[in-house]
């Protein structure tokens, strides 16, 4: 097999001193699950090395091992020709390895300077972080990054936070910069900017290891691509040695084709006026730091319609969805579900009014990890499984087993703890539970974030099915493609306001992206 040949030929070229990082035979197990199996990886000096693979292929696990968050069960890590043991992020940093994670690793309630002072090792513990401001200014001008050192991190946009992390890496004199899915939440403009900064770093003699699941992106930026599938390296070659088709095949395997779904019964622009199920009027919501996160948002969602909210993360989507779900107090405006005013009422009233919620942070809001599948399945409507205050276990188990089958949830059974399930199966469980009662309104926030392709496809199909059953769906997603494939209407949220609205048929990707950056006159 061709794949295996590449694998072995790499093994023979050992201890090249041009290698910044050389990983040999790293494996990692979580209980009975194999996350990584005998992984080899070499990153050369002045190279942008892309680690490509699907969600769940083991990329993040490998990165966490390189950054000392996990420790490998076997294998050797060699940095600049020396075998090292990376026991903590502190160790990694001392070897010149810095990780920029998918979600910014910054403290929201502190300023940029305060955040950066923490990781700046040369600063004594009882020294004031003031000195650092000069350094930050120097770096930002050298790399064309503009950062306000006194700004509160919670007020920064996603890409600004990412820039702060880049400066942090530079302050630590990074030799190998690792970026985990850095572009997921960036617009194309911001992505190009990031890539040019990365090129600048390479020119200075640093190296970059970039983790992504996007094949196109890998081909765009990389010098070398290593493909990871189900915890194993299936190919590692210079970029030019791949063809696009081949690369796609390597990433997803033979099982399914990567193809966004649009079901047949998806007929946009239905002209029949349907009843309003969710009505939001002039909604204003405040964030944790006390600033206004949602300002004067008005929205109407009709039965049998999907309204998609596109936008760069951190423009008020989180606060909007929490306010709609009754988890956050509303400062001004109104929320009506099927005509019933639920503003500033708890989630209980919403659930009774026919509201279903597929939250972004599913482990926090969606499931109770320490409870089993059956108990989580009845979380929303446990009263319907009871008589005289006693829970009818038989009814629950029957209904759960039905759900497991219908929604293709991979589990050992109703009594398995939910924390043992994979992200995709947890999401299927949540969707199964929320759709079970035929809800009038569904709020889905990043419903496929971090899911493997198969689960993501299934979740999207289920949403569309619910739509044809008459549910009104509000889809808040940072994935513009997802919004475009699923929505009848698309609105763009920027700095807490709705700045652009269009129907699916007239939506243009380019205009939407510009709107997401606030470059639009409404």
């Amino acid at each position, binding site marked *: 097999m061709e794949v295996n040949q590449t694998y072995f030929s790499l093994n023979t070229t050992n201890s090249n001193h041009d290698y910044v990082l050389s990983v040999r035979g790293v494996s990692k197990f*979580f*209980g009975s699950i194999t996350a990584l199996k005998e992984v080899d990886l070499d990153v050369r000096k002045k190279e942008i090395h892309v680690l490509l693979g699907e969600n769940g292929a083991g990329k993040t696990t490998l990165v966490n091992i390189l950054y000392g968050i996990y420790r490998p069960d076997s294998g050797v890590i060699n940095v600049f020709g020396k075998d090292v043991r990376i026991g903590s992020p502190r160790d990694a940093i001392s070897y010149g390895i810095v990780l920029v994670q998918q979600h910014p690793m910054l403290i929201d309630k502190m300023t940029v300077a305060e955040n950066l002072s923490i990781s700046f090792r040369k600063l004594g513990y009882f020294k004031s972080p003031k000195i650092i401001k000069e350094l930050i200014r120097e770096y930002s001008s050298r790399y064309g990054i503009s950062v306000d050192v006194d700004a509160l991190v919670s007020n920064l946009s996603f890409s600004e936070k990412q820039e702060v992390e880049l400066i942090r890496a530079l302050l630590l004199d990074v030799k190998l910069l690792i970026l985990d899915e850095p572009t997921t939440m960036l617009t194309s403009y911001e992505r190009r900017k990031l890539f040019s900064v990365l090129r600048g770093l390479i020119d200075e003699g640093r190296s970059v290891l970039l983790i992504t699941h996007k094949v196109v992106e890998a081909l765009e930026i990389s010098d070398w691509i290593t493909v990871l599938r189900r915890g194993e390296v299936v190919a590692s070659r210079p970029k030019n040695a791949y063809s696009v088709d081949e690369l796609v095949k390597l990433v997803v395997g033979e099982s399914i084709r990567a193809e966004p779904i649009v079901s047949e019964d998806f007929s946009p622009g239905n002209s029949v006026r349907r009843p309003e199920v969710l009505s939001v009027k002039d909604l204003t919501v405040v964030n944790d730091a006390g600033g206004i996160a949602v300002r004067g948002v008005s929205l109407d969602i009709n039965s049998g319609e999907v309204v998609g909210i596109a936008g760069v993360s951190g423009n008020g989507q989180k606060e909007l969805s929490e306010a709609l779900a009754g*988890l956050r107090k509303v400062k001004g405006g109104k929320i009506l579900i099927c005509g019933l005013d639920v503003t500033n009422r*708890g989630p209980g009233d919403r659930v009774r009014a026919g509201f279903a919620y597929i939250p972004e942070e599913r482990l*926090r809001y969606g499931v109770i990890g320490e409870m089993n599948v059956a108990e989580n399945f009845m979380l*929303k409507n446990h009263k319907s499984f009871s008589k005289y205050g006693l*829970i009818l276990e038989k009814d629950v188990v029957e209904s759960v087993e039905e759900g497991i089958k219908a929604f293709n949830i991979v589990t050992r059974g109703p009594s398995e703890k939910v924390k043992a399930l994979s992200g995709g199966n947890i999401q299927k469980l949540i969707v199964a539970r929320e759709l079970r009662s035929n809800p009038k309104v569904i709020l889905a926030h990043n419903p496929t974030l971090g899911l493997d392709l198969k689960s993501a496809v299934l979740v999207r199909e289920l949403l569309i099915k619910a739509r044809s059953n008459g549910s009104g769906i509000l889809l808040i997603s940072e994935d513009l493609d997802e919004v475009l494939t699923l929505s009848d209407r698309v609105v763009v949220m920027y700095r807490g306001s709705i700045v652009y609205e269009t129907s699916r048929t007239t939506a243009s990707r380019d205009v939407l992206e510009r709107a997401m950056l606030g470059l639009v006159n409404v």
Partner: protein
Amino acid sequence: MFELKVLRRYEVSTKLKLTVYTLSFVVGLSAFTLLEVSYGADLYEVISKLLIKPLTSYSDFQVTIRYAIPIGIMSLGLILPYRSGIYSIGAEGQMAVGVIFAAWTAYSLIDLESPYSIVVALLAGTFGGLLWGLIPGLLKGLLNVNEVLITLMLNFTAYSLTDYLIYGPWRSPKAYGFPLTEPIPKSFMMPSYDGIHLTNLIIFVLLTVVMNTVIKKTVLGYQIRAYGLNPTAAYSAGISFLKVALLCLAISGALAGLAGSLQLIAVHGRLGPKSWSVTEGLGYTAIVSAWLARLEPWAVLPSALLLGALVNGGLTIKAVLGQPEGIVSIMNGIILLSIISAEFFINYRLVIKVGR
């Protein structure tokens, strides 16, 4: 060079849990024994007085049961808030208020015949504890006020209230100047059989069965567990926090009040200060008992018995060695610390790798 790895256990067997728990309990007890020995006690004497005699000698066992019943009933009550993530430490004060209510009934309804008198006194005591539990219940449920501090402040307040009564209006002129109240009327005293209060014991065992069902089989129990394991998910699923907080704290208060009134009409018969008090700090020991039972209602039966024995033994040691009240408090503290540390060893595995 050695490396310490902390690994999460994915499957935790019952055997492992039991072993770790027993070990941690033994460690805690040994630490206490060591302290006593270093304070000049004889090792053999400590072990015999603390654990062996209270469980083996019949006359000591009667006293052990006498402590185990109130400890157990209060633990059963405390399990509800603990399971819902609410940390009440108010059993002591709720018990004290229960005692006051029961005694007040007895003093004001002197002519009532038994067994009605006993039922009325128990109901009054239960109601008193319930009232004292409703205060933190309302404050927690409506405003999410820190329940640990509120319940503790209410304990102090209940102590002051008791002091007021025993030094003031209820003080008996016939107690040779001691701040003791009149004995409650005979018709209000619970009969005992051969030194063991069988009725109390039956109530305790029945309550254990009831609470076990409540936690495991009922909607309320489910809602309580949901809040304890993930409050944000429970809240967004529409479960009312006010209901859970109110019921948990009210029921646990009621059970503490019941325990107090049982203790009054079966054992003490009058109110007094400090070591003569009806509560004797058992409300705090009940916290230890609840955690020792790992918040499992059925496991309160053995854990309350064990702590009853330890309280009994501790007080014997105190008397024999002339030590102060604090002895039971230290024991409680050390055992509680070792039990909660055990959780770590149940959930995680330590692997030490020597060399590279």
